[in-house]
């Protein structure tokens, strides 16, 4: 992929922004967001025979050697060893310090100097300029002091500040990468290699080069790189990344496997069923990368604050030196100014939002929930109203038989006869009847001469009798009689939004089947959980009011609007805006496109469409509606983390800045304080990756059929498409 490394740091997976560092590691082009990531990545991934990785370490080591020696000599100086009789040695000691400090400064300061230079060439001032200026001033002053033979030099401060900054950014980068390691499997589809078996020889190839029909070997512990069918082997896989459910699925010869799932036990040989870049995993990967490289509103504000603050801090540093120079010797005033510059480095502010957001996105994606924009999490956290679509979102979207009214004929007989007819039909409702018959273990009655009457129903013959199943018009055409009680019941069922099928044989209508879309088993507890999070829940549906009212009553929604077209749905959502400010819409992603795009947060459940064309900003996995309360809880946690991070970073900087400007904070301490402030942000954000998995207890036990459905839908194919493909 061309976008690899363009916008995310190779080490910590945060967006790079303006200050990218390009390096080649292990023959691959890598980009880093900061110097710390550059070092940490090479320490972790650099091969020992590679020059650059070792060279960075040598620089650090030699820099540390010189710095520590400078510190030790300074320590002896501060202890007063060269006062009195030995005072003649002092200039020589200062000269020695100068000799040590110069290479240390060059070695440790070069990356900061280079960045400052590159940014200055483009007319920007970044925080590294603060370091360069402060340290440079201390160094330059110390040179003058050495030449003039004055008492005090500050080579130790200059080198120690640089050393602490380097170590601090290294530790911080290592911490960020550790926090973001959850993101790696989600981004791996673009970088991972697969073992392709071609006529007995095995070769490693990038996943994106794999085409349909290729054989791929997957070892235990590896990720399945492509969608396909098992040709050889026996194992279990974990499909959590795709379906959101972390459980083991048994795989044997002939089983379908999903790209991105982890092969747990045994080696598998898989025949690829499509291109490696067209799998849902690859789509998820692209989606997560896109989301990570975007900026949220809070982040944009923070970045702007950082950009504005640097020149401001420079002025403040200058004023501090000017002020203190009147009260104390110039060299000490300079040190106070250095402390101000060092402590005002706004590294932590720039880190506050992106780290928390990307951890949140990674945490959600690991359970199959895709966030397409970092701003979504912030908006979702502030959402106070959730509007639901009914069909296919809160309900299964497939009709089921909910009632059988008859004039005395047995339920089983009615079902067996209806199933015998509908077996030959491809109508959507036919499926529901056959399912019901199968569930009761009924054998469909053998039916001959079956023919469909378009828009009416099905006709046929069984046991020498004519048989029919269809609507009232079909029965009217046939002239079959209908008991008045049955007619009345059918009419009231139709009025309340049920689909009704008349079943008749031997010249008479014997039964009326009522079919309805059933609410999902998890819907009720989920609505309850949402309400306990303080959210207002409403139902916006295009269905008839009675049907909507019935579903709303079952799942416990009080507020609802029915008979809405997509346009009026948008209008209805807009009506809620004044009182609820931020509103979210939950739909199935197919019919609700415009409304989802219009809501502050559009949430699509089980989208089978191409993710790239998806209009919703948050996509839950197929059958993943039950995770919604958890997703909102995560979003709120992310927002809270960002706010505490910002509060902490600003507060810390302000307090430290005040102390530094008052001359209380020594520059070396200031550098240590700065490093620790970013580290604290990393630790504070890290709790996001440790958030618990969504509680499965929310769902009441699901029927097995629904379970297997959700797995097959996980492939991104509509259920009905399966047999259709077989037939063609």
């Amino acid at each position, binding site marked *: 992929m061309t976008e690899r490394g363009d916008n995310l740091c190779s080490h910590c997976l945060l967006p790079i922004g303006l200050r990218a560092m390009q390096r080649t590691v292990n023959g691959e082009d890598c980009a880093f967001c900061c110097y710390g990531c550059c070092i940490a990545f090479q320490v972790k991934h650099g091969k020992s025979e590679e020059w650059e990785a070792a060279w960075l370490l*040598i620089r650090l080591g030699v820099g540390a050697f010189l710095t520590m020696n400078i*510190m030790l000599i300074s320590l002896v100086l501060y202890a*007063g060893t060269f006062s009195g009789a030995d005072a003649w040695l002092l200039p020589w000691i200062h000269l020695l310090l100068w000799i040590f400090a110069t290479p240390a400064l060059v070695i440790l300061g070069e990356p900061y100097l280079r960045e400052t230079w590159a940014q200055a060439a483009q007319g920007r001032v970044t925080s590294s300029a603060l370091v360069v200026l402060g340290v440079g001033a201390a160094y330059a002053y110390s040179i003058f002091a050495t030449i003039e033979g004055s008492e005090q030099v500050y080579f130790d401060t200059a080198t120690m500040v640089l050393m602490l900054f380097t170590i601090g950014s290294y530790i911080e980068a290592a911490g960020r990468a550790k926090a973001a390691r959850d993101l790696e499997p989600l981004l791996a589809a673009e970088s991972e290699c697969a073992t392709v078996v071609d006529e007995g020889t095995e070769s490693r190839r990038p996943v994106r080069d794999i085409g349909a029909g290729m054989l791929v070997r997957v070892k235990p512990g590896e990720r399945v790189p492509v969608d396909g069918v098992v040709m050889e082997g026996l194992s279990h896989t974990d499909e959590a990344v795709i379906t959101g459910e972390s459980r083991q699925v048994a795989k044997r010869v002939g089983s379908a496997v999903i790209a991105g799932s982890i092969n747990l036990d045994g080696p598998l040989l898989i025949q690829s069923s499509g291109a490696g870049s067209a799998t849902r995993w690859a789509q998820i990967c692209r989606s997560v990368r896109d989301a990570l490289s975007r900026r949220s509103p809070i982040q944009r504000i923070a970045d702007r604050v950082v950009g504005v603050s640097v020149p401001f801090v420079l002025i403040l540093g200058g004023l501090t030196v000017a002020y203190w120079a009147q009260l104390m010797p110039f060299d000490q005033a300079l040190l106070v100014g250095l402390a101000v510059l060092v402590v005002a480095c706004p590294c932590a502010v720039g880190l506050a939002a992106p780290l928390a957001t990307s951890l949140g996105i990674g945490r959600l994606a690991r359970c199959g929930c895709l966030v397409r924009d970092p701003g979504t999490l912030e908006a979702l956290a502030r959402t106070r109203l959730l509007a639901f679509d009914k069909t296919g979102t809160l309900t299964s979207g497939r009709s089921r038989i909910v009632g059988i009214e008859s004039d005395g004929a047995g339920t089983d007989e009615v079902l067996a006869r209806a199933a015998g007819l509908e077996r030959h039909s491809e109508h959507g409702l036919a499926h529901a009847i056959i399912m019901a018959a199968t569930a009761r273990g009924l054998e469909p009655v053998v039916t001959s001469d079956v023919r469909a009457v378009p828009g009416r129903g099905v006709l046929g013959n069984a046991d020498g009798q004519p048989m029919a199943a269809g609507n009232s018009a079909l029965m009217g055409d046939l002239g079959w009689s209908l008991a008045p009680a049955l007619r009345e019941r059918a009419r009231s069922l139709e009025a309340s939004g049920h689909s009704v099928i008349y079943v008749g044989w031997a010249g008479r209508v014997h039964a009326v089947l009522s079919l309805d879309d059933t609410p999902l088993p998890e819907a009720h507890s989920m609505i309850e959980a949402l309400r306990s999070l303080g959210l207002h829940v409403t139902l916006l549906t295009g269905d008839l009011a009675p049907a909507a009212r019935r579903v709303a009553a079952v799942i416990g929604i009080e507020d609802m609007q029915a008979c809405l077209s997509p346009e009026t749905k948008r209008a209805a959502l807009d009506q809620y805006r004044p009182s609820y400010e931020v509103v979210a819409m939950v739909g199935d992603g197919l019919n609700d496109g415009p409304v989802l795009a219009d809501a502050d947060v559009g949430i699509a459940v089980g989208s089978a469409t191409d993710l790239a064309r998806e209009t919703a900003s948050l996509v839950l996995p197929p059958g993943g509606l039950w995770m919604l309360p958890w997703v909102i809880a995560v979003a709120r946690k992310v927002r809270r983390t960002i706010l505490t991070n910002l509060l902490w970073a600003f507060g810390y900087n302000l307090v430290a800045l005040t102390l530094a400007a008052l001359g209380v904070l020594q520059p070396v301490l200031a550098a240590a304080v700065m490093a620790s402030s970013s580290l604290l942000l990393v630790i504070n954000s890290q709790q996001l990756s440790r958030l618990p998995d969504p509680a499965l207890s929310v769902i009441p036990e699901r029927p097995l059929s629904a379970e297997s459905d959700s797995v097959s839908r996980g492939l991104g194919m509509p259920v009905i498409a399966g047999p259709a493909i077989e037939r063609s």
Partner: protein
Amino acid sequence: MTYYLVIFAAGFAGSFHCIGMCGGFACALGHDPRGRIATVERHLLYNAGRLTTYCFLGGIAGALGAVLCTSRGIEVPVLNGPLDAAQRFLAIAAGLLMIAMALQFFGLLQGFHRVTVGFGGSTLAVSLRSLLKSPSPTAPVAFGVFNGFLPCPLVYAFAAQAASTAGALPGFLVMLSFGLGTFPAMLMMGGVGRMLAPAWRQRGVWLAGSFILVLGLITLSRGVLPFAAHVHALPGGPG
């Protein structure tokens, strides 16, 4: 002076322990193809790096001890408790730590050993690996510097001793004596390789353990005994 000689001797005895881990590194650093002088130079650079780190740790530990014990020399005192009590507390803590370290050398307290050695060691070891093979002439210095930071109970024990001196300068001197004490063995390892038989190494480890145990007991007694039995006569704290 006697105090530092004792530390030097302890470092020398303790360096037989070093042969197990750091000696391996010294061996890996090996011979320089450019000849004997280049090899000696290589190992001197490595040991200089190591010594610098030790001294630095000693200075830091001593300064921390000073911060705990006295407000002199440090601008922001962390604790302002009674001066004598704090110093006693530090001596007791350092003494106990040293005794715990010493017991490890006799094969006791293994769980404690894992805690001290496991902390952050793996990242450093990875860093070291890529330096060992580097042809750069300055690589041994960098290698020595990182080596000095490797988690090692011996270094911790003496850092604790350095902290108990409650002064940056005496702390630095403690670690300097200790580091110099480890010089002979480490240089020998670099030049001669694994000369000593395992049995002798084991005896060396016990010797090191005994030394640290005695030092630990002395340090502890400084904190516990009614009148402070200071072995050294240096003024505490930087001026």
